[in-house]
């Protein structure tokens, strides 16, 4: 049984051979998703959430308006529309197995990082029975999790911000990643994995330091992502002024949202769950 299981595992590894071998990381830059014969599904997006409807109508133009009100983003097309230059990269595909009495049941876990190299990153992790499905799902999840990254200066505010505004640290599992502001021209001083993430974030110079079992790519990547999320969570004197509250988009566009949506039930490309 164990042998057969081993063989099966080997087969699977062979099947996904590109990923099995280059599993370490930077292989497999799948850019922008597949344009194949799937065009119809991708073109017609029928929004299901209120936020989706507003974005499709064009009432919301920047993703910052969504961040301002902490609105949950449920449809990945929202992010696609608001952040046009998104690139994605598969960090790793690992086969994970579960034992059943008929051998092992292998699934593939995909880690995908998404970003526009100018202040927005997202990280998606998805496990599925086929590699392609996992990657697709991970890209969608990554888009849903896009967060803003705050950049600042090392000293002398000349030109555009190029580094982290302050020392920040992120943790996931045993891995802690610490980012320290660096002078211009230093480049990203980090290991291969966080370097990718930081490039997608649009940070040009930074010193990093990590601790813990950075071998576990999942935790390592999540720790850097957590670190980047914290850049906007850090209170600096610029935020000392009183907030001017703005109406939420749901209140502002309440008349538009009150209109019923027609034709939704006729062609529903997405699955629905009967409640």
């Amino acid at each position, binding site marked *: 049984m164990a042998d057969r299981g081993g063989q099966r595992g080997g087969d699977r590894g062979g099947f996904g051979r590109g990923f099995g071998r280059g599993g370490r990381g930077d292989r497999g830059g799948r850019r922008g998703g597949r344009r194949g014969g799937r065009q119809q599904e991708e073109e017609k997006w029928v929004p299901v*959430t209120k936020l989706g409807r507003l974005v499709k109508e064009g009432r919301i133009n920047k993703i910052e308006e969504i961040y301002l009100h902490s609105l949950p983003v449920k449809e990945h097309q929202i992010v696609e529309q608001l952040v046009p230059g998104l690139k994605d990269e598969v960090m790793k595909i690992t086969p994970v197995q579960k034992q059943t009495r008929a051998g092992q049941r292998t699934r593939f876990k995909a880690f995908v990082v998404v970003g526009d190299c100018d202040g927005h990153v997202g990280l998606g992790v998805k496990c599925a029975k086929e590699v392609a499905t996992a990657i697709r799902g991970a890209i969608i999840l990554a888009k849903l999790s896009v967060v803003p990254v705050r950049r600042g200066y090392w000293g002398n505010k000349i030109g555009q911000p190029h580094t982290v505004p302050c020392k920040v640290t992120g943790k996931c599992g045993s891995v802690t990643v610490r980012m320290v502001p660096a002078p211009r021209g230093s480049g990203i001083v980090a290991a291969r994995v966080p370097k990718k993430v930081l490039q997608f974030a649009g940070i040009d110079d930074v010193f990093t330091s990590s601790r813990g079992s950075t071998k576990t790519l999942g935790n390592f990547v999540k720790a850097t992502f957590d670190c980047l999320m914290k850049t906007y969570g850090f209170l600096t004197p610029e935020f000392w002024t009183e907030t001017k509250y703005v109406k939420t988009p749901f209140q502002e566009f309440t008349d538009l949202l009150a209109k019923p949506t027609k034709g939704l039930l006729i062609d529903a490309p997405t699955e629905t*769950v009967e409640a």
Partner: protein
Amino acid sequence: MAAAAGGGAVRALSQKEQDIQMMLAADVHLGTKNCDFQMERYVFKRRTDGIYIINLGKTWEKLQLAARVIVAIENPQDIIVQSARPYGQRAVLKFAQYTGAHAIAGRHTPGTFTNQLQTSFSEPRLLILTDPRTDHQPIKESALGNIPTIAFCDTDSPMRYVDIGIPANNKGRNSIGCLFWLLARMVLQMRGTILPGHKWEVMVDLFFYRDPEEAKEQEEEAAAAPDFAAITDYQGAEQWGAEQWTSDVAVPPVAPTGADWGAAPAPVPTGDGWDQAGAPVPADGVVPPVAAPTGWDQAAQPTAQGWE
């Protein structure tokens, strides 16, 4: 205080005082034997038998605050009123009917506010609940969806994720009905639909929970009363039967004075109860008990439609 109470009988009571009198009659002020630390500010005193008494003045203030929030929502359809408890279901449905909100009575399917693929998915702007403990699932979901929550909280209710807590008794049937009636009236007054001085023509009893047996009893009584009147005027009754039934099957029966038939006017809110209860009646050949107390005049018909 005693002098003021005695003096109150002589001069007219203000709106607030009348409301508080009504709340006292409905036992809104009676809490439970436990007190949550966040509800301590609303408690007046603990009785000798252990029950905490709620300060109704504060209840009234919180009701006003809640009404203001409700009025601030431009589209009333975006408000969801909910009750899992049976005692609150009728009140919630009536409240939704008079304010234009959306009512959910009974079980809250998990995921209605978070799962966008569900058919019953909705994104409300405001949530009103009868009990944070029994309705804990909608509270959890509204926290995920940025939905402000108003709830009637008893002295032992958990206040987590409740934004406006109205201290009140949410266990008694009269209490819940009374509170929703007051809230509905306040909302309509603030919107300008009702003038503040006048009495609202809708009765509190409409919001009280009715047991199914009790409901059947009342309708049987209503059927029994007009029997002998029908026999004398049988032919006219036939016509009446046809007319009345075609025009308004859904309209609640008329009893404008509401003397005996206090609860009879409002059948089971969904309207199905009315159909079931009403259907056998014309089959018997007896004119529907609707206009029974007032008699078979022409007057009965227009008042029925006026009620509509």
